[in-house]
């Protein structure tokens, strides 16, 4: 993937470890509305920690970059950065937390501390497209600085909750109009739970976008007792102890593969 040159216009620290940079591309533009940068290079330095981008002006080739330096032992950013010109290399595999659809009027996002970083460029993207947004954040967002940033960006459209309870989520979802989409991010089990709730409230697959973090362990539905457990080798149901022959038959509703009873 080619390296593309850009110029730094502005830099702001928006969280304890998160920087937001405004950049202008020199010649070549970045390929998507919202994506990921694999590396930033300048004067022989390479920064490889998570960097997300969002396009804010196509004509003026302007983008915001979000950098998380929490995992970087040498604080390259603090010490040597910024210099005015550097090179970006994109990560093509990245799937954004949310990709707006043509007819989106409103997007409700469920996030947690772990998926917060992936949500940051999406917030700017939706703002730039004038799509109404409402964010529900679960868990203790320990970083007060980022909370202030979210409040500034979203005004009253962000709600903090200790956890997502099904009654509360159902009441949020039940009052929505057509044209409202959902963005669900967080750890896979929570994402799967929320998605199930949304489907039961009448949201279609097209109206829901999910992005889980962490491993998505393959689950098996035991046809004998209907419990759902993680796939193991020589699968034996932890609940009813039936030996299971795990098939490729998959249910999106249950997010699990069918385990048939195995007999001698």
């Amino acid at each position: 993937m080619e390296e593309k040159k850009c110029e730094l216009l502005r830099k702001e620290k928006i969280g304890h470890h998160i920087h937001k940079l405004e950049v202008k591309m020199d010649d070549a533009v970045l390929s998507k509305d919202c994506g990921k940068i694999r590396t930033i290079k300048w004067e022989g330095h390479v920064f490889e920690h998570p960097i997300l981008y969002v396009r804010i002006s196509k004509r003026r080739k302007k983008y915001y970059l979000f950098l998380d330096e929490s995992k970087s032992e040498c604080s390259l950013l603090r010490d040597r950065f910024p210099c005015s010109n550097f090179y970006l290399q994109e990560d093509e595999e990245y799937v954004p937390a949310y990709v707006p659809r043509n007819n989106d009027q409103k997007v409700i996002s469920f996030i947690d501390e772990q998926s917060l970083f992936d949500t940051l460029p999406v917030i700017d993207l939706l703002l730039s497209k004038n799509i109404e947004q409402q964010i529900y954040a679960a868990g203790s967002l320990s970083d007060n600085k980022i909370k202030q940033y979210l409040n500034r960006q979203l005004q009253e459209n962000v709600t903090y909750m200790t956890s997502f309870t099904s009654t509360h989520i159902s009441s949020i979802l039940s009052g929505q109009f057509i044209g409202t989409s959902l963005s669900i991010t967080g750890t896979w089990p929570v994402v799967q739970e929320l998605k199930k709730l949304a489907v039961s409230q009448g949201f279609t697959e097209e109206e829901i976008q999910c992005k889980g973090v962490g491993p998505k362990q393959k689950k098996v539905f035991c046809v004998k007792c209907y419990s759902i457990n993680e796939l193991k080798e020589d699968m034996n149901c932890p609940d009813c102890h039936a030996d299971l022959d795990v098939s490729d038959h998959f249910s999106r509703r249950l997010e699990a593969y069918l385990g048939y009873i195995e007999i001698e």
Partner: protein
Amino acid sequence: MYHMELTSASRSHAIPSQPLIDRFPFPFKEDKYRYSNNSKALESPLVLDITPEYFEEVKSKRDILAKTHNRAYQALSHSMDGQWEILENIIEEMVEQHPGYFGLEKDGDIWTFYNYLLEEQQTFTLGDPSTLPYEPLDFIGRHVQEDLIYIGHRNGDLYMDAGQLCFPANWSIAFNLGMTYTEFHSPVPHYSDSGLAEKVRNFLLRMEAGKPWTRLNWTLTVDGVLPTFPEIFDEWGTKANEVTVENAGERVYLRVEDQKLFRLPRSYGILFGIHTHLISVEELCKKQEWAVRFCNVLEDLPDYMAEYKGFLSYKPYLVQYLKNSF
């Protein structure tokens, strides 16, 4: 007015009993069987087929529903309109085609349904599920021999939205609920990758009201067990190991599903009815041309199909039994 007095005399309307061999829907039209779109236009557009096994099978269904309800009945909440449409269609058919067995009294939306065969009656308000003891599909399914599946037609696709399924050929509605047509057929070998599934799906998507279709599907079941749920495979699946050349005639049954497909004009879903018929191989051999044809079909059948249908292990014994019979 369809109403007839509910008297015990009505019950003695015995269901006419023809020997099984004279009414069994033998599925083989040639000496070879492969998957194909074998659907045909249904001549008389009727959901129900009432056979002498009615009492026994309805009792068996109700026992299963009472003991293991979620194994045999599943429905998504948005299936309710389709469920009412199915109930109305079936009751209308019952009283028009079988006035000796069923009756109906209408007072606006308040219906009183009579089942003279079982000496039962139920008054309910159309469209109000709280006036029935079960959901509409679950209620009407308890008065017929057929398993009834409601397929929703949404977003240009077909979804398994509800079903009462007491006599499955080794598939689970608890697992399949909510799947698309393509998803719930995915275990069928070479059905999707041959392009047949896609062709049949397009045919179903275009199905019109008033033009129902029918097809026969078949498999084999040991000891004539109707409720071959995958949930209790450990109870019936082991029987396959007990089949020998000597006992194949008695123990192996040809299992034929008479499947019927109806477009429901109001909900725009599809009703898929399955009437399962069983005949022992011994009985079937009373018609020699059937025994010969069945034997030829089995000998020609690819192993992947025998494996999927669950009789690969005893197929040689069955073939030998059939050969010995003619």
